[in-house]
């Protein structure tokens, strides 16, 4: 078994696998088209300008300063002022009715505080269920307020400060696009490894070539390993494509170590490959393999990885369930390394969990491995 791994048969097999992939346009499209489309689509969604966002003002001060700022907000292209609210408590109702993207709250005595204490507060409340818009809007509003502050300083020569207090409602953690790239990476790697490996092995079972391969001196285990290697290579290429896109198209750099990122990704790819292998072991048709891969792997990964739907908001049972989804741990690792720029000391726990899962899956695979047709 061991002796058959790095020999000419192995490389002939790997070469054959690559030929399969490169001669099938559908596979190629899925391999490289999907990640490119995903990343660029979200990249453009990210850079989309926001115009005429409906905002609402709750002005307890109703003095010169507050009116001037409201005037500036109303004059900007970005905002479209709705009827002012009289009570702070009405804000939530306004958000719930829809339309409203942001609320600006001036406390009573705004102007007086500004003039006498040289410091005043404005509260910006945004609906962070749409995190992109929320950040963009509060950014625009802060700029406008800062402009006013500058004008005031130049006019009066005194160090006035207006503090803007941000409050996010509905999604205070501001899960947003920066989290998207790590999410896409986890999903694409899963898609390529689980779906493609299981389908390509089951395809050989279906077409009868597996029968011929089994009745050869090449060990069945060798067949599986040689199946896995091309997909490992393709997945790493895919990872590179996504990273390049995110760096050069989305302008989102990798803050941590590339080496660490690739090392951990390789581990995750092996986890996914073992999952694919397990699926190919229990299914006999390509459709079944595809269905199990999509419904059994991809859907839970989308749901329970935490990048589309925050895990914190889920019922406790589902949060517990999320722990057995490998993509969840990989997502945390990629986020830490890519965005926060953390080193191995910050992610060793998650890496250990992933390693444990991989070993478990490999053991199950070897135990369940079929050297015959039954």
């Amino acid at each position, binding site marked *: 078994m061991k002796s058959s791994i790095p020999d000419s048969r192995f490389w002939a097999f790997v070469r054959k696998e690559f030929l*399969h992939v490169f001669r099938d346009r559908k596979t190629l499209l899925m391999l490289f088209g999907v990640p490119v489309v995903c990343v660029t689509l979200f990249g453009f969604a990210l850079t989309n300008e926001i115009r005429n966002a409906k905002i609402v003002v709750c002005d307890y001060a109703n003095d010169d300063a507050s009116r001037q700022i409201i005037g500036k907000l109303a004059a900007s292209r970005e905002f479209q002022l709705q009827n002012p609210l009289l009570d702070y408590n009405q804000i939530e109702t306004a958000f719930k009715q829809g339309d409203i993207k942001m609320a600006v709250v001036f406390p009573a005595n705004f102007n007086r505080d500004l003039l006498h204490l040289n410091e005043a507060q404005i509260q910006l409340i945004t609906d962070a269920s749409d995190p992109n818009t929320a950040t963009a809007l509060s950014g625009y509003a802060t700029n406008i307020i800062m402009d006013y502050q500058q004008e005031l300083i130049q006019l009066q020569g005194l160090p006035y400060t207006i503090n803007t207090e941000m409050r996010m409602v509905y999604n205070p953690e501001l899960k947003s696009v920066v989290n998207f790239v790590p999410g896409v990476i986890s999903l694409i790697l899963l898609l390529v490894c689980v779906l493609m490996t299981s389908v390509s092995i089951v395809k050989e079972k279906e077409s009868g070539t597996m029968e011929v391969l089994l009745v050869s001196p090449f060990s069945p285990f060798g067949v599986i390993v040689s199946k896995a290697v091309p997909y490992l290579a393709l997945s790493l290429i895919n990872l590179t494509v996504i990273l390049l896109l995110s760096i050069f198209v989305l302008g989102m750099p990798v803050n941590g170590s590339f080496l660490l990122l690739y090392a951990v990704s390789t581990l995750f790819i092996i986890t996914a490959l073992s999952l694919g292998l397990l699926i190919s072991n229990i299914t006999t048709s390509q459709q079944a393999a595809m269905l199990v891969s999509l419904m059994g792997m991809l859907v839970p990964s989308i749901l329970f990885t935490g990048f589309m739907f925050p895990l914190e908001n889920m019922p406790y049972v589902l949060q517990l369930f999320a722990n057995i989804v490998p993509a969840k741990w990989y997502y945390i690792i990629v986020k830490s390394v890519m965005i926060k720029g953390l080193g191995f000391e910050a992610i060793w726990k998650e890496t250990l969990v992933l390693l444990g899962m991989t070993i478990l899956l490999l053991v199950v695979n070897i135990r369940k491995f079929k050297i015959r047709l039954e």
Partner: protein
Amino acid sequence: MSIIHCQLSTINCQLSIINYIKMIVLNNIIKTYDKGETKAVNNVSFEVGKGELFGLIGPDGAGKTTIFRILTTLLLPDSGTAYVNGFDVVKDYRVIRASVGYMPGRFSLYPDLSVEENLRFFATMFNTGIRENYDLIKDIYTQLEPFKERRAGKLSGGMKQKLALCCALIHRPAVLFLDEPTTGVDVVSRKEFWEMLKRLKEQGITILVSTPYMDEAMLCERIVLIQSGKILSVDTPSTIIGQYPERLFAVRSDNMGRLLSDLRNIEIVKSCHAFGGYHHIAFVDRIAFAGQANFADEKENPQNALLHALENENHRNIEIREITPTIEDCFIRLMGNHYQPTANGFT
């Protein structure tokens, strides 16, 4: 001198007995599916000698593929033992896998790889190259060579089978297992295929081949007739035909459909089966029929009696002639009443 010669010939004779090496042995093999519900192979035993071209003949669902899979170590038998080239199919599966060639029933090459790529791939899998055993596949491969750049999926049915045979032969196996290699292949290609098998046999390769086509049975040295997982007969095709106990007649008329039912209603006809252009009939045993009055007159010639009977039923252009039984006749007789043949035999 002549004494020495005589002795030599005895030695030769003894040698040839010793030379009968059992390459394939099955002892009481039973294989069931669906947790014992369906018996695919029911107590099957037979032996194949070295260099034999041995046929497994039976309709779809007879258990041919299961026997192949047990012998190629792909399935485990429920009970019984089997040996290929002296090795146990359960314990020594690795040795067997390295020394046999197997061509499964369905097309089992990579359709997206070219002819040459397929051959090269399978050669490498068996630790060999195309050149090493080129003489063995030369006859077949020269026909494929003009298309070597073509994807295997785009080949015709006959060409596909030739390529699959090349791939199964590339490592010069001791035993070649061919599961229905000619199913779905045109008549000319089938003929060519069997000629190739004969040449391979001459090279000393033991061949076990299965087919649902009864006419191909005659091309094998020995055959086993199998039905519903049970062996009906094991022998040379001519012996099996020679054992057919009755005289057989072929009958035809203008209205073949009505003729079949009429023949079955005539008392002197013992059995009647449709065989393409003719119905094959056997007459009842005369002794058993001695008491019947209308048959007594025509005692000497049952054909005349039949002719009369059919003319009375308004059949025209009646033709009755005696024929040698075919393997299919033998098969139907051995099966007894379990089988209703179709116009095209088993296909």
